[in-house]
């Protein structure tokens, strides 16, 4: 067990470091959420709940950053390793592929912390955002829970996208709709009823709910439990699809192709 933990930890540190060294990735994770937070600020400033509405929107914008980072980072992860030539080395190690890939996808979600930090900091400095959260400890739990469950969702993306031909365009298509359907931008109650089930199976829906409840008041426990439950389901799916990918790639000789 402790060995599995070490492996996860080393892999996570390594991959966070690797992503942090990518100026583009970091810039993307910090700058674009700031734009969304700013736009949201002006939308909410004229609305009903100025102070808390702003925190509400900033947290949503930060979560948008986490989702984008997972979508592009994890979705393209295996293809990127293939281009770099590292896929043939990481697949040939004794542990299962999932043990190698999971720290990578959780790392892409963790990079989203830059987004949360940048939107909150920006809001604080520019708009004097109040940062005295209602349940600070739950806020941390909800944030970590969101990152882990999004990392697990990334596991599903990394293993399914690699099996699809046009995964790149799919990534682009999925960015904005998920922002909408998980309630990061606007309240879910504004969306038509048929979108509800889609919202429920996506971890960002529950993650942002937990984070907002912890920050602004409300019971964050149920959303956090939902994050955990979905995370386990993603893990099961990812385990299956990654195993399938590994065997298929070894059969079809696609590990080394660019």
């Amino acid at each position, binding site marked *: 067990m402790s060995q599995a933990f070490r492996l996860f930890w080393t892999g996570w540190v*390594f991959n966070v470091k690797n992503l942090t*060294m990518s100026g583009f990735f970091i810039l993307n994770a910090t700058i674009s959420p700031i734009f969304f937070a700013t736009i949201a600020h002006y939308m909410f400033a004229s609305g009903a709940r100025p102070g808390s509405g702003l925190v509400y929107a900033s947290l949503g914008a930060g979560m948008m950053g986490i989702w984008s980072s997972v979508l592009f980072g994890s979705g393209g992860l295996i293809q990127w390793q293939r281009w770099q030539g590292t896929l043939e080395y990481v697949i040939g*190690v004794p542990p299962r592929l999932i043990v190698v890939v999971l720290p990578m996808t959780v790392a892409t979600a963790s990079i989203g912390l830059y987004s949360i930090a940048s939107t909150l900091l920006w809001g604080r400095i520019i708009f004097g955002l109040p940062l005295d959260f209602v349940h600070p400890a739950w806020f941390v739990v909800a944030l970590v829970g969101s990152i882990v469950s999004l990392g697990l969702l990334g596991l599903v993306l990394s293993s399914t996208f690699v099996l699809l031909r046009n995964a790149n365009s799919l990534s682009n298509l999925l960015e904005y709709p998920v922002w909408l359907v998980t309630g990061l931008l606007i309240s879910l109650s504004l969306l038509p009823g048929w979108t509800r089930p889609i919202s429920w199976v996506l971890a960002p829906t529950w993650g942002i709910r937990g984070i907002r409840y912890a920050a602004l008041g409300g019971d964050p426990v149920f959303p956090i439990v939902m994050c955990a439950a979905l995370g386990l389901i993603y893990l099961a799916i990812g385990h299956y699809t990654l195993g399938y990918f590994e065997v298929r790639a*070894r059969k079809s*000789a696609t590990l080394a192709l660019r």
Partner: protein
Amino acid sequence: MAVVEAHDLRRVYKTHTGTIRRRVKEIEAVRGVSFAIDKGELFGLLGPNGAGKTTTIKMLITLLIPTAGTANVLGFDVVKDPREVRKRIGYVFGGERGVYERLSGYDNLRYFAELYGVPPKVQKARIEELLELVGLKGREHERTEGYSRGMKQRLHVARGLLHDPEVVFLDEPTIGLDPVGARELRATIGTLTSAGKTILLTTHYMFEADALCDRIAVISQGEIVAEGTPAQLKSRVASGAVTEVEVFGIPDETVERLRSLEGVMSVWVEEREQAQVLSVQTRADVQLTAAILGHLNGSNVGRVSHREPTLEDAYVALVEGE
């Protein structure tokens, strides 16, 4: 018991051609390869480009599933027990691809040490030792994107040895290394065998194979065409001697005429800086120098020399004979 065993390994690749009417084309890269490598042996796999060497290695290191046939490493089947095989083998592909470019050499090694289950207590010492061995000491904290091609390659060698594997697969490990670096790596490979490791090596440098390998298999178009010690290969195929003649512009017809001479086994021409070198390999029982020079009558002839066959001669004869 042999450490590495291949039984009638086969591998077919399917590729797609055409964009609108996509057709599947099948390439038989390896067609029934069998061999066995004993413990502590350094086994060479030689063959022309596209012969199927890398494909064979990838099947043995569990990266490719064979289309047919079986193989095992240290008694573990490469298809049924890939994880057991992976724990005990190291592999290095020549070339610079496959390192995490944004991170340092040390970080790269540290990561793979963990993936290969090197105990945390010994990781540091092991990495230091390997950095020393491959000559990267002092540069390990730089990002690998700034490494030269040879440095990346040496990093791969270190990576492949992290977990002190019993069996090591080296696919053209010296390609692109400078002469001193290549010589150092050959010395390193030598020390590995004296430490009891079993090694499978591919290379296009015949002198390297000759110097290092205990046994060699020559593979051509997916099949093994000869196998034996370097000495056996030399005597078996090139039982004759080689006459080398420096020429300045030799017509193709002359080469053809030399080929048809009684007692000539093979003829090839290499371009040198100002001249070409014509090599004629002949059976041991004939003396053809005069006849060769006779055929060259009219061409401008430089230095003429005579030598015993090298592994390269044997290789050329084997591969050409296909």
